[in-house]
């Protein structure tokens, strides 16, 4: 029983962490609270599902399609919303309100195109063989989800640490002006960040869609709220904090459902969030930093 909960918590926490990474990346680099991240998550899930159902693609090709679609969404988001507001030096709440508009627009377009009902992957498309691992049942699908989530996280951490782009992001997050003086292509990097963040959010959407096999237009809303909880727990803009926070929330949810009851699940996330904001606004794992606002 305990081992089973552990497996569930790892796979759920991995997806939460993936989602929160994109969210926190945009906040750290672009200094925008991207409330359209949940809608991009939903878009990724729909792209993969329609790839399978409409174009009869195999699951892997559908995942690639979802990556293309969400990357385009991330690029458009930066070019059409963030870039004009940056150019105007709008107050930092303006892009946040605009992303709420983007979220509503995307959600209602998808709802108009594909309907409000719950869509599912054809069951025979999903691998279903299960292994027994130390008393826990783990399906090969869960294994793949865990593997993909961890591979993407490792890739992102490696990219941030070792590549030129990753190194250029650090001065950019500190001060765009200074970064530009150092010869960093500021606008290009902002776009790239938005694209990578959307990719991560979209992949989280695909994985959740495969995991729970339920795709619906408003699926991004609860996820967005959880993403907010995770980045608050981990400290805003903190990459490692988002990772830890994602797994923390995954474990908190799975174990509270198992041992307290399912009605309390959502209350756990938001109770934690509210408490952390009031008591430790820098996050559970973060060091106190000076106030940005």
């Amino acid at each position: 029983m305990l081992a089973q909960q552990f497996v569930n918590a790892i796979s759920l926490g991995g997806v939460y962490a993936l989602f929160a990474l994109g969210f926190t990346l945009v906040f750290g680099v672009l200094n925008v609270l991207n409330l359209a991240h949940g809608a991009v998550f939903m878009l990724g899930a729909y792209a993969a599902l329609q790839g399978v159902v409409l174009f009869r693609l195999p699951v892997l090709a559908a995942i690639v399609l979802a990556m293309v679609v969400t990357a385009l969404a991330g690029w458009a988001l930066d070019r059409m919303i963030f870039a004009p507001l940056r150019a105007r030096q709008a107050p930092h709440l303006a892009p946040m309100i605009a992303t709420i508009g983007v979220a509503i627009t995307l959600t209602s377009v998808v709802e108009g195109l594909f309907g409000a009902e719950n869509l599912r992957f054809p069951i025979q498309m999903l691998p279903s063989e299960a292994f027994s691992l130390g008393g826990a049942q783990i399906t090969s699908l869960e294994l793949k989800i865990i593997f993909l989530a961890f591979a993407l996280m490792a890739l992102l951490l490696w990219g941030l640490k070792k590549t030129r782009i990753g190194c250029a992001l650090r001065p950019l997050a500190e001060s765009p002006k200074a970064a530009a003086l150092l010869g960093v292509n500021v606008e290009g990097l902002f776009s790239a960040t938005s694209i990578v963040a959307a990719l991560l959010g979209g992949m989280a959407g695909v994985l959740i869609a495969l995991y729970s096999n339920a795709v619906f237009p408003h699926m991004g809303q609860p996820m967005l709220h959880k993403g907010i909880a995770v980045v608050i727990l981990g400290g805003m803009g903190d990459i490692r904090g988002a990772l830890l926070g994602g797994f923390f929330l995954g474990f908190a949810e799975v174990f509270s459902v198992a041992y307290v009851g399912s009605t309390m699940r959502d209350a756990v996330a938001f109770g934690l969030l509210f408490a952390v904001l009031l008591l430790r606004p820098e996050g559970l794992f973060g060091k106190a930093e000076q106030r940005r606002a």
Partner: protein
Amino acid sequence: MEWLDTFWSTYSTLVLTVGTNILLALSIYLTLACGLLTVANAAFMGIGAYTSALLTIHADLPFLLVLSCGALLPALVALVIGHPTLRLSGVYLAMATLAFGEVVRIVILNAEETTGGALGLNGIPQRTSGFDVALAVGLVLYALRCLACSRVGRTMIAISQDEVATELMGINVRAYKLLVFVFGAALAGLAGAFNAHLTFFISPSEYGFERGVEILTMGVLGGTGSPWGAVLGGLLITILPELLRGLGHYRPIVNGIILIVIILYSPRGLWYLVRWARRSAQPAR
């Protein structure tokens, strides 16, 4: 006056909803005008709606008393959570109020014995009349007008322009923020009480994130320069979906596009445009 009777019998619900939405828009205008983005208005509306509906159903108190309680309880809640919450600023404040809103929704959802849980409360007597709503909107607008010329109104403008400078002038910024937060909550609660006694039925899903965003859209659309902006925003956001019934599932898209277009092209809101147009229409002296 026969056409007026037919008009009223067809559109009375819509007109009354315009009124309650104007109250909601004014509730977020108060905090927005102070430079605070709080998205807990939907939750305060829910608290007001449930308080008033329960009082009417179980105690059958007079409507005026029910309305006052519907405004008072959210104000009290705002007073309690406002003190720690308003230490935060910017997006942190937005997120804290968002989390608070979700907590309220989940609490209403899970307190099934009193609130009926997800099924909501059914059979609330329809007591909201056009006169009450018009009177409430009128009184609030008059109060805000008086406020604008007072010390409090000028302080609010100062805080929205530059918080630190205002504080350096010896003004207790925290107290003023708490004041607008509490008044905003009371207004949202009043709107909730009116709304509950208009729609016959309330459920927790009506007071979630979507409603919060709708209220924010009204505030942003109208702009924060004047209470009349909020009136305009509340009016348009209520009437537009009715005019666009043909869009079907695509209908919420209007709110989304409004938010994007206003933020990108007219961040001070529609009322600013109206004033600007009026001023440029006048011949130069």
